[in-house]
């Protein structure tokens, strides 16, 4: 199988995210992944919002849509994993007038839309529409996600990156206050939690079962992270089932007190991620929040972060002002009206408050409604601020595996992998928002993270692509049922096989340093290189000039060091001076070289 029509490799294949695929089976300029198969190809017109209508050919495989223009110079290419497609629609009808009015309209999950035009004669779009619809949404058509078809092999096995016990041991757990429980080994306590949990030492298995009945979806408070010195902990859970009548549960109250007690914290702080009005409203559906009178040794703080629907609409608005063209008049006001950065600010400042409490030696419990969206954002960001291990390349993978994947952020529902129902109200860019927060932190602390922006973009690309198993399914139980780890490849296999590509040259390890980003709009900025990356006017640099200069200088230093070593070697042993260039005697015209240093104005 070869796309023989095409010749030269595309300049920016796959948005820089998957260099490695170029190494694989060469297929014209679009290399197929192992396990990837061609389905159809067709002459088509791509209505490019930047360069106008472009004639070319489109290729559809079971993994991607690939387009290359025929006569534009330089050639325009598109490489879109089918997983990134959110919606496929027919545009115009057989009788539509006007040029290029008949074709396909594709909405992507990665901040772009694609329009293709076809000839109106002979239902020319029917086959391509059907195929696209089928393969972009395989789960709606009884097909497997591409991750289950991929035959990719990597040097590293990414599934071994995260081992829960190892991670707890790194944190110094279990200890005399906290124990590991296997009560959820068969997902019987809570079907959306991982199998291994850490709970207060004094809480019995029976206690856990009782608490379970009072927490939404059985998501009881469990330990996420412990501060090595002051033993303050971050616990996460879902809302208590207080309801309209204001129910209380002695076991839950006692259990939270055990958490407080573990490091002698006088008052346990409960962070409810929601705006207080929403928390109150939740009582109507049986939920609620911890009341003052019931939880005497706890203080409750609302963090005012909005729900998944608000975030979805916000990102939609953002897309409207950046794609295809960046809003020109009153850009800043338009940006403000999307509220996207305001939401980012609220999430980050919530996490700062959690981290600050922990640094002060106070244990905290974090929840929202179900404890898998806002809660995951807050705990993982706070952990990123507190624990430098999570700022390393592998540590960050552990963080995602633990707080997001392990604790059941509903990736399948939030992203809608392989599902045709684009209007599903469960979809929401919560994880994208979290990665944006991480990006904001890396922007503010450019030397504190071992990984670079490329890693973050790669993660988001494969959040949608369905090429790896990492972000598939809603929870561990579902992953087990579907034998995810044995049948698919982990994204970390790709990343860890080419670590240097994702490394930040400025990284300066500083353990025990707490990072507090500034959650002010003055410092928060739109992540242009992600949200506006399809716009050719945004210069996509492989490396920032600062990074480039730094790497140049590093190389130069090594070169000089080597030279100097050689010179010293030859100086110390005059008999062995052979190097024609560098062994010139010192006496030889030193002035000549000084000019290198003092270049005149």
């Amino acid at each position, binding site marked *: 199988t070869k796309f023989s029509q095409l010749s030269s490799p595309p300049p920016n294949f796959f948005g820089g995210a998957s260099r490695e695929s170029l190494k694989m089976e060469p297929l014209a300029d679009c290399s197929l992944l192992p396990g990837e198969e061609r389905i159809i190809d067709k002459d088509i017109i791509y209505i490019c919002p930047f360069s106008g209508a472009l004639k070319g050919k489109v290729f559809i495989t079971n993994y991607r849509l690939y387009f290359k223009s025929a006569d534009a110079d330089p050639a325009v290419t598109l490489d879109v994993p089918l997983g990134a497609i959110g919606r496929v629609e027919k545009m115009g009808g057989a009788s539509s007038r006007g040029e290029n009015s008949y074709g396909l309209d594709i909405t992507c999950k990665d901040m772009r839309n694609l329009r293709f035009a076809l000839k109106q004669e002979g239902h020319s779009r029917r086959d391509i529409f059907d195929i696209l619809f089928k393969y972009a949404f395989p789960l709606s058509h009884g097909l497997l996600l591409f991750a289950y078809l991929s035959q990719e092999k990597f040097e590293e096995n990414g599934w071994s990156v995260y081992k829960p016990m190892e991670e707890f041991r790194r944190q110094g757990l279990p200890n005399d206050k906290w124990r590991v429980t296997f009560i959820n080994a068969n997902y019987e306590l809570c*079907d*959306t939690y991982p199998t291994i949990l850490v709970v207060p030492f004094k809480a019995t298995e029976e206690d856990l079962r009782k608490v379970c009945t009072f927490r939404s979806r059985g998501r009881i408070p469990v330990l996420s992270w412990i501060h090595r010195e002051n033993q303050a902990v971050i616990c996460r859970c879902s809302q208590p089932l207080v309801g309209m009548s204001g129910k209380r549960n002695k076991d839950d109250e006692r259990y939270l007190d055990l958490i407080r007690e573990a490091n002698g914290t006088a008052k346990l702080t409960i962070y409810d991620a929601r705006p207080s009005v929403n928390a109150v*409203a939740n009582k109507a559906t049986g939920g609620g929040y911890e009341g003052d009178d019931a939880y005497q040794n706890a203080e409750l703080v609302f963090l*005012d972060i*909005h729900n*998944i*629907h*608000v975030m979805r*609409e916000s990102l939609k608005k953002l897309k409207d002002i950046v794609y295809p063209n960046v*809003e*020109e008049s009153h*850009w*800043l*006001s338009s*940006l403000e*009206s999307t*509220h996207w950065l305001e939401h980012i600010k609220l999430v980050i400042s919530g996490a*700062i408050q959690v*981290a600050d409490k922990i640094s002060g030696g106070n244990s905290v419990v974090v929840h929202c*409604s179900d404890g898998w969206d806002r809660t995951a954002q807050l705990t993982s960001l706070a952990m990123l601020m507190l624990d430098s291990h999570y700022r390393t390349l592998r540590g960050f993978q552990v963080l995602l595996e633990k707080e997001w994947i392990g604790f059941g952020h509903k990736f399948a529902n939030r992203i809608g992998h392989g599902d045709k129902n684009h209007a599903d109200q469960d979809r929401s860019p919560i994880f994208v928002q979290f990665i944006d927060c991480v990006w904001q932190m890396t922007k*503010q*602390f*450019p*030397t504190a993270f071992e990984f670079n922006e490329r890693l973050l973009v790669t993660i988001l690309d494969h959040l949608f692509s369905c090429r790896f198993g990492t972000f598939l399914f*809603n*929870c561990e*139980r*579902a992953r087990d049922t579907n034998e995810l780890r044995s049948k698919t490849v982990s994204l970390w296999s790709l990343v860890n096989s080419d670590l240097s590509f994702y490394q930040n040259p*400025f990284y300066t390890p500083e353990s025990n340093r*707490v*990072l*507090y*980003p*500034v959650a*002010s*709009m*003055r*410092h928060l900025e739109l992540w242009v290189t992600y949200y506006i990356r399809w716009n050719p*006017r945004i*210069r996509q640099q492989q490396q920032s*000039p*600062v990074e480039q*200069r730094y790497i140049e*200088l590093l190389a*130069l*230093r090594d070169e*000089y060091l080597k030279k*100097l070593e050689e*010179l010293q070697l030859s100086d110390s042993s005059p008999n062995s001076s052979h190097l024609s*260039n*560098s062994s*010139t*005697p*010192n006496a030889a015209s*030193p002035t000549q*070289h*000084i000019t*290198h*240093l003092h*270049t005149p104005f």
Partner: protein
Amino acid sequence: MFDGRVLLKQVILLFWPLISTWVQGAEKIDSCQLQVLEMLSSLGSAGGKSAKPSFVSYVTPEEIKSEKEPSRKEKHPDLLPGEVVFCSASTVLKYTQDDLSQRGVFGVLLCTNFRVSFVSDEEPTEEMLFKNKLYGENDIPLSCVDNIYGDKRKLITGGLVKNKYPSKMIIHCKDLRVFQFSLSFSKEEDAKKIFQGIVHHCLEPKSLRCLFAFSYCENTSYPGSYTVENTSYPGSYSYCREHLMWCWSHHSGCALFKTASIPLVQEDNVPQTYMEKMLTAVAHNHLYSVKTEDLSDTLPTVQDILLSYNKFKQFFLIDNTTEFWMSDMKWFSSLDNCGWLDIIRQCLQKAVEVVESLEKENTNVLIMEEGGSDLCCVVSSLVQLMLDPYYRTLLGFQSLVQKEWVAGGHAFLDRSNHLHLKDKVESPVFLLFLECVWQLQQQHGPAFQFSETYLTVLSDSVHVPVFTTFLFNNDGHRDSLLRVKTHAVWDWSVQFDCKAQDLFTNPLYTEKPKQDTSVRKSYRPRHLRQLSLPSSAFKTPPKKGFFKDEADNLKKILGVKRLSRWMLSPSSDSPQTSSSVREFYEAWQTKPLDYHGLLLPCLDGPSIRVWMQRYLRWIHDVQILGGGPVAMLSKVSEILGEVQELQRQLDRHGCTLTSNHKGARPRAKTAAAVIAARSSVRLSSSFPFVTSRNWAFKPAIPTSLLQSLMVTGMPGNLADREDDGGPESLV
């Protein structure tokens, strides 16, 4: 509690005369008295209304005890030559603006002919790395005072102050610092005097001769730092008002000119005579056509610029934290509404248009405006900065400012209104130019030899009345007034020591790799520029007249070429221009970026930004401790220092460096040494302006978060909905 307070108030009022003498005569103040003081201060400010205490002292009585009369007399800053103290007041409380708690330090407040100065009673804590030799962190040069506010944030204007003085005085500075002083603990006489003194010297009209530069220059005699401000435009100010000024020639032969506006056509012959004059002026180097551009048609007026900047600067003159976080919520739209960034964008866009004409169309360009010395200066300097890499070096930039602005007749004195005259139009036009330069620098860092810090310091120096560079309206004005040799701002050693000056160099900058210049020199097309270098470092032979030489040379080169007719293009209409500019930018953008070639700014919304270092440097809540771009740049500087050191060692060995020298040919000085020595200290994002102050390692937690985040217009009110509605499906 409330009743008790009312009662106490009545008691105080009853015994007021007694208490006031008691308080002022007291050498010792104990905590009880402090409470009364607290009450008094609240009375003073709030009249008879609510009695909410507004002041909490964190100073122990012992600290106040140590402040005695005798020691006061010795407390003054190190005075500069020619500096005279006008008045002073002791026991002034300077609030530390960092937090809400109204805490502060006591000290002496002075007003001299150079500055307003606060000398703390406490020992100075630590030496700042980036110390200004002329004024310290608690000094405000008189011309740097922007506004003074009294109680209830009432704006004080000169002339209206009689016998009153406020208990609290807030001073906003032109370099964005904010000082808050309480005068309620000082002797009434002193407080009155210092307040009136400051208001008089900072806000009321004065004569030019009163500016400190004159006393300073007469009293300083550093042989090394004399500067002959030799500028090279021929003739005087009047010349550039009526005539045409040649700014710069593109290597293709076309050139940029500027002039004051052509008078509107009244009678037939008037404009023609004028045109003829202009024609003669450029006839010698004429080819192709000339595009004229009246800047006042498309760019904002100096009044617009002032208005917009006045709104803009308010976002950074922060009195307290709450206010700051309140304004944070509407930050983007406020920024948008003040229009400052848009003015920057417009200036850059206009410059790109001119660049396009010169570079792509090879036509001459004549820019004009009323007076010819405001936006003409902005645009002409920006054009040259974009086209000619020389102007992106430290020395080149200096000469650009010197020729386009100082010699070009920008009315610095009127525009900064140092004299507080009512009939002058104040406007931060020069700052606007620096802002535009900053945008370019931000987008294309490695193209500039000077750093962001250099630009920030330059923008501050406009308000330091020691230098005569930015003190006059034009050269004629200067010559008529200056009999003594004076200090140019470019002699940075007057303000900073060598180490601090190292921070003016950009570690990302590399010189252009040298080609075989000796061979190609003769026929390679080159830009032509005026080589005016008035600087302390390079003394120019007096009155040699660079311009004349250069101009003659130019005439020789161009005289042989065909003379074409004037072509007056209609003033460009904006939608078309903007799309043409966009195409020009896009075409340029697809080519590989050459930092030593043409440089164009991206003008898209997200690309025009706020000059963080300049505007946020004093605001505690937004300092990123251990972060910000400086964290990266300092690492670059560090490694650059190492490379340079290695290079020196290799040179000592007489080793010829054959490899790529790109990285290793920086200026002799870099910031490497400075920063490497400091690498143990965690730098904050406002480095070098606030460096080693020991701030509490507590994060700033935004207050008033949700007030404005009212999610509206959501279909079916999504904000109130549950995250996950129905029953769960796990897969």
